[in-house]
């Protein structure tokens, strides 16, 4: 796999039975890449190991007063230099490719999983986990994947080098062959403590960042009411805690660095002491002594990989576990009737409340109890809050909606939440949703009275023409007011033009002036289609074909707004928000 071929056409079906299995699955999928990286790494390390050989030969050549020998040593070093340059570059390229392809694969799997889970994510703790895997864990998994082949190359090279030294200079070689494994493993016992301290530091740093960003996010409140000093003091304390934790962590790493200086140093002293004796006895040449000395000083290159793989493994294991857990999530709802191709239609009926929305009409629903209204909206949207076994699906034309394939059900009935999310992107992208194609974006925007939004977007437009369709809407539409966001979301739902459109409080943040016009626009655009609005504003209710009052969990009254206003006290109380007392005063005044 090459980087420029990414993304994968199909990221595959991961083995998510455990974190380790997931790592193995990733590894199996890039076996070729791992082998390539290993071989290039071997070339690099053997090249590095060849340098002291050249140095030794050169030293010996000048002792032997041989110009030819010196030139040959030079040629060897040049050859080794070429091997190092090629090996280093290519190992880096292949190892980095391994990490990028693994990271891309996991990100693709996550994107697919998130799209599949949809609304299920919001109800589980999983939402945070998916994001955590994507932002933190992928990198750690990638790090391990990248390190693996480099480590394998280094370990192989060390075995070859030690073996080579034993053959090249048996007496000194054995000393080195015994010493190197000690060097490789010496720092490992210190690592868990160092990483634990690093974790504490990261945690505290995270806390400080959270405090800082929280303070900034609420800064307008602070500047408006006061309390800056309180929050500054708090942040200073957190910041100093980070500093102390970081220094504590650095103490451990400094100790590790010291150990990594001292142990190879001791090995060198032994090599020098023993080697000098051997040289004196004539059992090794001076050149050979210099070669062995040089080889030991360069051993820290491959040795570094031991420390790195240990850390990468300990970091990536929990990450892989979490990634596997997230990727193993599935939707629990199952569609029993595979009514492929069949598009349901007709009246929308909720057996639980007895709410009926006849096909083709504009039905408004008024609920006295906020919780019941919330539950009703959830049920219409296919997000039942009750236990699955006691769940009764909403019927569309007599067909239980929740038993249809998800895509069919959602395309038949669109429920716009109380808190719809505007996805970031340009206005054009925002309104580019799967739709019937019968309602244009302009019509929908006009019906939802988005004129002022378009003006604001045109002013911020990146091109000179001031085309609002090309202006980016920031995440969740934060640059817009609450009312503007609601109207844009409404326009998006109108563009979709579903068979049945359910709107939950679509204009609660819109001012009364605009609301009246929005309601009229929606009514006009949805003429002949089924529309259900959960609302309590008289401006909206007045335009509905029928208004249903849901009281204590049941539909108890049906009629037009005016009829119900005149006939039903419960309705009046909910809609006009007047207490009995005030109503009484009104009556007295009008009398």
């Amino acid at each position: 796999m090459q980087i420029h071929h990414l993304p994968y056409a199909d990221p595959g079906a991961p083995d998510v039975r455990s974190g380790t299995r997931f790592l193995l699955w990733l590894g199996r999928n890039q076996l070729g890449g791992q082998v390539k990286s290993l071989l290039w790494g071997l070339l690099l390390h053997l090249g590095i190991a060849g340098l002291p050989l050249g140095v030794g030969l050169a030293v010996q050549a000048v002792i032997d007063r041989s110009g030819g020998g010196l030139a040959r040593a030079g040629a060897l070093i040049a050859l080794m230099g070429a091997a190092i340059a090629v090996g280093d570059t290519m190992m880096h390229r292949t190892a980095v490719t391994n990490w990028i392809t693994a990271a891309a694969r996991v990100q693709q799997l996550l994107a697919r999983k998130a799209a599949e889970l949809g609304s299920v994510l919001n109800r589980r703790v999983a939402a945070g986990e998916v994001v955590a895997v994507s932002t933190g864990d992928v990198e750690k998994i990638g790090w391990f994947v990248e390190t693996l082949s480099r480590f394998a190359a280094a370990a192989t090279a060390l075995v070859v080098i030690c073996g080579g030294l034993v053959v090249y200079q048996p007496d000194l070689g054995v000393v080195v062959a015994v010493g190197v494994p000690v060097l490789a493993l010496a720092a490992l016992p210190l690592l868990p403590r160092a990483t634990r301290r690093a974790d504490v530091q990261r945690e505290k740093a995270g806390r400080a960042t959270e405090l800082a960003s929280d303070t900034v996010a609420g800064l307008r409140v602070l500047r408006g009411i006061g309390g800056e000093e309180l929050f500054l003091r708090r942040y200073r304390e957190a910041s100093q805690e980070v500093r102390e934790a970081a220094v504590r962590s650095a103490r451990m790493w400094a100790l590790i660095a010291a150990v990594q200086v001292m142990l190879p140093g001791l090995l060198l002293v032994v090599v020098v002491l023993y080697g000098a004796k051997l040289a004196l006895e004539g059992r090794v040449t001076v050149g050979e002594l210099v070669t062995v000395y040089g080889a030991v000083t360069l051993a820290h290159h491959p040795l570094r990989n031991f420390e790195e793989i240990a850390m990468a493994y300990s970091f990536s294991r929990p990450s892989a576990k979490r990634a596997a857990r997230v990727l193993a999530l599935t939707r629990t709802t199952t569609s029993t009737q595979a009514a492929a191709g069949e598009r349901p239609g007709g009246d929308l009926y909720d057996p639980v409340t007895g709410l009926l929305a006849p096909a083709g009409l504009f039905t408004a629903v008024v609920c006295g109890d906020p919780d019941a209204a919330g539950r009703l909206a959830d049920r219409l949207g296919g997000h039942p809050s009750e236990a699955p076994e006691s769940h009764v699906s909403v019927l569309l034309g007599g067909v239980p909606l929740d038993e249809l394939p998800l895509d069919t059900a959602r395309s038949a009935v669109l429920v716009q939440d109380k808190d719809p999310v505007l996805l970031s992107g340009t206005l054009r992208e925002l309104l580019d949703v799967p739709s019937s194609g019968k309602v244009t974006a302009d019509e929908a925007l006009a019906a939802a009275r988005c004129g002022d939004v378009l003006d604001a977007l045109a002013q911020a437009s990146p091109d000179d023409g001031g085309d609002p369709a090309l202006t980016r809407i920031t995440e969740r539409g934060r640059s817009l007011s609450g009312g503007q966001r609601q109207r844009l979301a409404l326009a998006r739902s109108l563009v979709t033009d579903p068979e049945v459109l359910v709107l939950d409080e679509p204009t609660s943040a819109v001012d009364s002036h605009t609301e009246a016009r929005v309601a009229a626009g929606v009514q006009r655009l949805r003429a002949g289609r089924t529309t259900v609005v959960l609302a309590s504003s008289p401006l909206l209710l007045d335009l509905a074909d029928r208004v249903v009052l849901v009281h204590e969990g049941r539909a108890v009254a049906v009629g037009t707004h005016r009829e119900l206003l005149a006939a039903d006290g419960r309705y009046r109380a909910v809609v006009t928000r007047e207490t009995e007392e005030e109503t009484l005063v009104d009556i007295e005044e009008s009398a």
Partner: protein
Amino acid sequence: MTVVIGMAPPAHDPAAPESATTLPVGTAATVRAYVTGLLRRHRTAFAVLVAVNAVAVVASMVGPYLLGSLVDRLAEGARDLHLPVTVGAFLAALVVQTVFVRMVRLRGAMLGEEMLADLREDFLVRSVALPPGVLERAGTGDLLSRITTDIDRLANAMREAVPQLAVGVVWAGLLIGGLTVTAPPLALAVLVAAPVLVVGCRWYFRRAPSAYRSEAAGYAAVAAALAETVDAGRTVEAHRLGGRRIALSERRIKEWTAWERYTLFLRSVLFPVVNITHTTVLAAVLMIGGVFVLNGWMDVGQLTTGALLAQMLVDPVGVILRWYDELQVAQVSLARLVGVRDIEPESGDASVRPDGRDVRAREVRFGYRDGVDVLHGVSLDVPPGTRVALVGPSGAGKSTLGRLLAGIYAPRDGRITLGGAELSRMPAERVREHVALVNQEHHVFVGTLRDNLLLARAGAQDAELWAALAAVDADGWARALDDGLDTEVGSGGLALTPAQAQQVALARLVLADPHTLVLDEATSLLDPRAARHLERSLARVLEGRTVVAIAHRLHTAHDADVIAVVEDGRITESGSHAELVAADGAYAALWRSWHG
């Protein structure tokens, strides 16, 4: 593997700003001044770091020197090698090196951490002093990204790059010095190799920092797309956007990996250059030295020492290259942080004091951009204790007028006075003793419930806090909390419902006790069902205060003493509900359609 001869950077740059930066970015001069100040504050620690490092490096050169003299004696055929002395010196140097390497690491970290702590605390101090008008206009998004992303990027630079670069430069310098002292001709080897390195590095560092920035932004964009899909799960499902979200994620992956491929190309040029430099230095030392030894101008021991020192150059050069581009990336972040210092804090005139509580607007004109006014000569009198409702269509200027009355913006023309004193000339701390703006933003701070209330009145006793909660009907749920006022709330703590959050905000108002309130859509973002409960709490806060309400819904306007209809930046009608209904204007028409 494709062989890359040359490569242009990808066309799409994810690091390019999507929306204009709303706050200023520091100039080169301010950044330099800031860095100079920072270094001066820590100069002792810096000097100690350099000194400790020098000792460690010198100690590390003892080994090659001892081996060199050993080689000399062996080559001369000496029978006595003074081995005990050599080994003793070797061990002593090793102990010194070990101790000092540990100190270098530790001192470096301590210095880096102190500079970093200085920097981030300094930034927050500046941020919380920003004028409310700047915050209102710029929003907190830009500031937020500076305190998270930029501080994060600087963390690496301060913690590692600055000390490591200091270490690396001293290290390399001493090694080259050691080489020169050992045998001056060997220093030529460095001169032979240096040009390749310099040319290669210049090429690389001209491209690398911005490429890495784009690469990081591209990767962040991959995660951001996913986070949004997750966050908008319900919307994605309802609108059947799953396929599009997957396609978006994959497009982002393609954009990000294109940058990965480009930076990989940059390193594919840099790596061979660096490797070849090292080999060239080593080979040149051996060849030049070899010729000198063969001609009897140098000892074989000097050659040995020189070759070993040349080998050691790999490490400091690696350190310098590793951290240099980090420092360049950090410069951009630093400029963004220092930029906040460039905003003049509007200190106001502390001698301006209100005499009385009446709020008056006289012929007020105001616009956000030059030449485009949003308000065109608005006059409004709000006598103490009255309730004024501003009604009108979206975009008519109601909210803007409200912010002017709350002293957040200064009028371009005309005057807004509180008790005869001009609001815009008072410091923000003085204004808020008298006037508060209550809007949809009911931020719950991370921390205890107590902290969330104390900010409004520092030093308040628990009894006062409970009284404030009771005043807004919030003591019921608050008393039910296991830890009472000590309960951790906000992100990561107990999640309050939007209604509870708004009650906390109202309790803060009770504690802060300003005599005038400007209400802007305070309850509009709430579920209308929850809003009803909350309006009771709000009504109790409003008792006895002057209120300017930007009324969204007619029933809130209905009870006001004065209703002012704002249309197109002007007040077109004003009077009581009865008067306006009788006048049969815009308000009356709306009221009829509302009330049937």
